[in-house]
């Protein structure tokens, strides 16, 4: 990857004595979907608003596509699509008129606008709602409409602040699919959420924020490897708890096993902290079978984002 599309260096925002965002640094490339996770009041919205040229940072710099967004906010605005965490719609305006208005605000001609409106309606699956009134749409559809509004000018960067909050599970899935599709189209996307599972499926990079600090950020695998240098294997003997004692003793004696513990529960699963790679793992399984252990399951417990989140955050809210 060459130069990053979005770059932030020690962005900081204070409101009087209150520090809303403390020195955030970020680097995102085209196609990156960055999940921005943190409890309420962590400073996600403030960060996104700074990147959306709505708030002037107290200090720090940020560029989008090489343009300094603090010095040239007006030049940066056509490059970004911003979806706020809470937004209102106008009464008595139809869906296509709403989108037509934003397209006009981006200086598109009448013909361009017609094409644009059709394109974004298609993309967000709102085509049949073209002539509906905006205030009559469901919350999920309004959310999609706002996303459609972000897309009228085909921006390079999308800043989505809690796009799935307050939606029912089905609408949430629709939004998630949409964001995934936009990522595949090569857009750089920042998505924030205070709920982790919302983001875990489709983000390739995450940042965890708490109390105005970005605690950790990077691509998902790197973070997991950082937090968990050893792999966790779960081995379940066929005969249940009775067989787990000898299994554990055998395992402890193996070379690359750091620790083996019997999990709570009646199936007698043994959790193994294993430092070896995949081939050593295969060797381990062969050895166990050769020694006559009857196993019904041998899996690696993948640490997911949820665990990362719990490991990293302290649970305090400012």
């Amino acid at each position, binding site marked *: 990857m060459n130069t990053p599309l979005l770059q932030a260096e020690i962005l900081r925002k204070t409101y009087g004595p209150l520090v809303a965002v403390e020195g955030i640094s970020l680097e995102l490339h085209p196609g990156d979907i960055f999940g921005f996770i943190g409890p309420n009041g962590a400073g996600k919205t403030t960060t996104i608003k700074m990147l959306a040229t709505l708030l002037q940072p107290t200090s720090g710099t940020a560029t989008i596509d090489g343009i300094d967004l603090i010095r040239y906010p007006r030049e940066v*605005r*056509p490059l*970004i699509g911003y979806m706020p965490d809470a937004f209102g719609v106008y009464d*008595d*305006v139809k869906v296509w008129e709403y989108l037509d208005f934003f397209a006009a605000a981006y200086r598109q001609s009448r013909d361009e606008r017609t094409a644009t409106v059709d394109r974004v309606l298609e993309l967000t699956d709102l085509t049949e709602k073209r002539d509906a009134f905006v205030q009559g749409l469901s919350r999920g559809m309004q959310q999609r409409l706002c996303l459609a509004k972000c897309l009228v000018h085909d921006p390079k960067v999308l800043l989505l602040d809690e796009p799935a909050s307050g939606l029912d599970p089905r609408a949430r899935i629709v939004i998630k699919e949409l964001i995934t599709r936009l990522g595949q189209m090569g857009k750089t996307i920042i998505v924030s959420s205070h709920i982790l599972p919302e983001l875990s499926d489709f983000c390739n990079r995450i940042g965890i924020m708490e109390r105005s600090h970005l605690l950790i950020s990077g691509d998902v695998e790197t973070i997991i490897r950082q937090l968990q240098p050893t792999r966790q294997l779960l081995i379940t003997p066929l005969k249940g708890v009775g067989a787990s004692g000898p299994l554990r003793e055998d395992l402890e004696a193996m070379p690359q096993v750091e620790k083996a513990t019997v999990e709570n529960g009646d199936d007698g699963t043994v959790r193994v902290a294993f430092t070896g790679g995949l081939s050593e793992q295969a060797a381990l399984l062969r050895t166990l079978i050769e020694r006559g252990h009857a196993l019904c399951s041998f899996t690696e417990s993948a640490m997911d984002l949820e665990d990362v989140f719990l490991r990293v955050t302290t649970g305090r809210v400012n």
Partner: protein
Amino acid sequence: MTSTAFPIHGRLRLAALRQSVRSLLFNPVVVRDLRAQMRGTKSYWFQGAYLLLLGTLAVTGYTLSTGQSLMPRSEDAARSTLSIVEAQSQLQGFYYFTFGTLAALICLIAPALTAASIVGERQRLSLDLLVTTPLTAGELLTGKLVSSVAFLGLLLTLSLPASALCVLLGGATLGDVFRTYLLLAIGGVTLASIGLFFSCAARTTLLAVIWSYVTVGIVVFGTFCLFGSGVRGGNFTDPGAVSPFTALLALNPFVAILPRAAQSVPFGAFAVPVWVLTAGFAALIVRLMITASAYRLGVYGGSAASSLRRQTIFLLGLLALVASQGMLQASPLGDDSTYGYGYGHGMRLGGTLAAALLVAFLGMTPFLPGLFVPAAAPEDAPPGGVEETGVWETNADSRAYRLSRVFRPVHAGALPLFHLCLLAVFGGAMTGAFIAVRGSVVPLERYLETVLLLAITALYLAGLGLLFWQLARLAACLVRRVSGARALAFGLFALLAALPIMGLALISNNSQNSSWEDHILGCLWLLRPLFKLGQPQEIVALMAFPTAQAYVLGGIVGLIRGMLIRKADRRAAG
């Protein structure tokens, strides 16, 4: 495309002009707002109710002013043998009733139309969506103004039947009605721009509406009084002589309907219709209000501040020029005693202008803390956030008074701005007075006397400004919250200005011979010259002491502030 200058402070380059035209004609905000406005059923109900109201008023007005019903019954017809003169005046009464009602409706409706526009977007949480588009603040605000004004135009059109009655019955000519409508529309746009400003400044729609009404009320009442005091004999419907000042006052809908607004102003060989000048003034004022709104909107990346400052200085100078010329023209000069009715009542030439200056200053004092109390980051005050005073950050570079910073919203430019405004007003007033006396038989020494009086007044006000500024800086050291510091600054100034009254009142109780302001110690009172404007001969002598006092006091306050800061610095270092 997006890098083109902000249309409202671009110079008159072709690109800027094109963009201005586009922001007026092809403004997406207008299209969207009009769509929404014209659609809802609310709008039909409103228009229906409005028509009904106008109709009722027209019939009532006709009945009241002519004593006749519109459809005369037989016994009415018997006694309807009026003289022509009587009938004429009755029809005129009907004309004033109809158009007075229309003027009142415009004053009530125009500010309310715009007052909700921006604060409504803010409360609906849709403003951010607009700000992140390449729409400039100027385009957004112009769009809001145009769409509101389009609605005003609709209301005016709906009122045509009522005013057509005036023409049919003979109370006015078609030309009169047309011109009056034009002036009413121009006045309506100007009032609407006041509503737009408060829509950007206020936190809730209700507050925006209240502030707009209060301001519009004061402006309409004040300009009508100004107009009235220039009318000799209290005969408002008398088509007397007009000046550009009349055209300025014709922005007031109640002045717009009077015959004077139908006159032309002579400029040498030419005569310019009043409405043309009025439209010019309206354009300048609306432009200033849009810039002020853009500044208050605080969209970052905009550069409204310097344009706002330039326009303010220019408009203040122009208003001073036009007002002084008009006021002096309306009052006969060269007479030492009384001037009968008119602006010059009991005063001499310069006394009037000095009085106007001082009163204008007093009217401005509530707003001065906003200019003088330094905030840490003026452009970037979040709505609802706590602003802090930024005075403790005393880096060596930020000298307190810098003429070169006068167009920037930084602390070093605050007092220079005040002084430049004062200078503009002084220059404008002097030029206006010169134009006014040039044609008349005023001796030169009278004019020079006026210049001297005004110059001393300006010097005195500059001193008061300096004192206020020092007090504001002191307050900013004592209180960290900007709003608190502003209140404290105003309080300190009011205290300094008002406190001596009590002491003086005590003294004068003992010496029964004269009232307290005439006491020798009375010159200790800062605001004393205000109350001595009736006697312009004395005023020069009387002003000298308070002026010196203002500068000395300002210096002392500055020293105290310096001591406080050094102490705090030492405490921070140690």
